[in-house]
């Protein structure tokens, strides 16, 4: 049977080059980077090299990179680290309604601890108006955190404009770039951000490792105390194999960006055209152009997404859905709700996220099976209109 992975926003397959770069650090170079002997020094060199590689990808300096356990921790560190440090200067944070739970849940926690959070809405294509962000700034505002690209619908936010407006009023800007790295250019100076989160496993690296870029001069309260690793910002013996894997993945993401982006956009546009052309009452979610090159997000009337996903899985196709039925809370996706899509339509949502290794033949196979599956489920559905 076919085995087609098109859920690359959930995670990606580690690149073979990443795996081979990591292996020596699981085998012979196992030292602790804090040790002064040769074992430790090999690890410390790998750590330095890795920091440089990640900095290079972002157009940053090595001492602006803090390694973490992934996107979630980076987001926590950016938000809580800023909030706790600046709590005497102000207690107001601005974010958006479509952020990843790593941001939203952290904000809710900060609210419990006395901070105020404004959640900026989006339009029906998932875009934030930078002027809404500007208008939300008050004297008490200490931080703005808006994601670079959305993990569900792939909408790309105008971070450059948000940063400019925020800085005019002296407010720090953080962006969650977990989904945009490797798909569109991400340069911290072009974006103008003070902090930026990234995660290795979304760019063909290993799970459980990521980084937070913190611009020189920007200070944070430490969340994980201990032996003073990562310049005192995040203690704990460094995950050298993971960090080496992240660095290799970052290097490859930089080298392959142009080729990957055009390949992905090709597949994406073909998939969108084919689906729209072959499935009646199918609608593209998200923005038609301000969109990650690997994101295809649809809703199909009268069918439920979990059924769709499981049926496609039986045909060897791995995708995801924002349907209430597939979530642990049985709530529909907060992102699709924020677009104003009614919940019965959210039920029929399907996310296809392409990766470097996908081919046009795979797109054809997936579309063919999608048509068949939607037709089968519609025939079974009591809400499909009779014609």
């Amino acid at each position: 049977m076919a085995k087609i992975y098109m859920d690359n926003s959930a995670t990606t397959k580690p690149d073979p080059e990443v795996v081979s770069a990591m292996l020596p650090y699981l085998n012979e170079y196992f030292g602790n980077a804090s040790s002064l002997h040769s074992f430790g020094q090999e690890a410390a060199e790998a750590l330095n090299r890795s920091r440089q590689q990640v900095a290079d990808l972002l157009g940053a300096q090595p001492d602006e990179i803090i390694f973490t356990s992934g996107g979630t921790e980076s987001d926590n560190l950016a938000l809580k680290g800023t909030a706790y440090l600046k709590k005497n200067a102000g207690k107001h944070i601005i974010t958006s309604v479509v952020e990843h739970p790593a941001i939203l849940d952290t904000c809710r926690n900060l609210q419990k601890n006395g901070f105020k959070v404004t959640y900026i809405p989006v339009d029906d294509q998932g875009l934030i108006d930078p002027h809404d962000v500007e208008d939300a700034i008050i004297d008490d505002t200490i931080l703005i955190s808006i994601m670079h690209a959305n993990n569900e619908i792939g909408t790309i936010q105008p971070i450059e404009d948000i940063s400019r407006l925020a800085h005019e009023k002296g407010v720090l800007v953080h962006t969650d770039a977990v989904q945009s790295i490797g798909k569109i250019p991400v340069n911290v100076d072009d974006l103008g951000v003070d902090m930026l989160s990234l995660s290795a496993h979304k760019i063909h690296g290993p799970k459980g490792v990521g980084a937070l870029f913190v611009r020189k001069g920007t200070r944070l309260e430490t969340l994980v105390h201990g032996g003073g690793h990562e310049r005192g910002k995040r203690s704990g013996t460094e995950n050298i194999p993971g960090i080496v894997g992240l660095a290799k993945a970052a290097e490859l993401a930089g080298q392959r960006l142009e080729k990957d982006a055009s390949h992905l956009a090709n597949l994406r546009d073909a998939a969108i055209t084919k689906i729209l052309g072959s499935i009646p009452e199918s609608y593209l979610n998200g923005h038609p152009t301000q969109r990650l090159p690997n994101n295809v997000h649809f809703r199909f009337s009268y069918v439920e997404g979990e059924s769709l996903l499981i049926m496609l899985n039986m045909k060897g196709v791995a995708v995801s859905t924002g349907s209430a039925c597939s979530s642990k809370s049985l709530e529909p996706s907060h992102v699709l709700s924020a677009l104003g899509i009614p919940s019965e339509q959210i039920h029929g949502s399907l996310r296809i996220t392409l990766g470097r290794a996908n081919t046009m033949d795979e797109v054809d196979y997936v579309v063919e099976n999608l048509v068949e599956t939607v037709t089968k489920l519609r025939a079974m559905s009591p809400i499909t209109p009779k014609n």
Partner: protein
Amino acid sequence: MYSEKVMEHFSNPKNVGEIEDADGIGEVGNPTCGDMMTIYIKVDDGKLTDVKFKTFGCAAAIATSSMITEMALGKTIEEALEISRDDVAESLDGLPPVKLHCSNLAADGLHAAIEDYLNKSKSN
């Protein structure tokens, strides 16, 4: 996450469709996640001689619909009314805890169809 039995009924659901001249129709919605199911029954001499369903919902909802139509077919009205949510889940070798509410939909749908039949036969 799903048992083999659930997957069997989901990939090959039994008794999908509508009964044109149904004796009872049960339409239920699932308040938890917002899904819908319609069950059609045909009754002859106090027995369910035909049971069909249409469902808009997750794999568990489709599998429980299919399962309950099989369980109800050939039963008397009284026996069919006794089929509970737990019976459906059990016949499918269990459901994941978050999916237990989907078996409510099937049992409620069947009971609603029988109720509809009983009301109609009363008014005749």
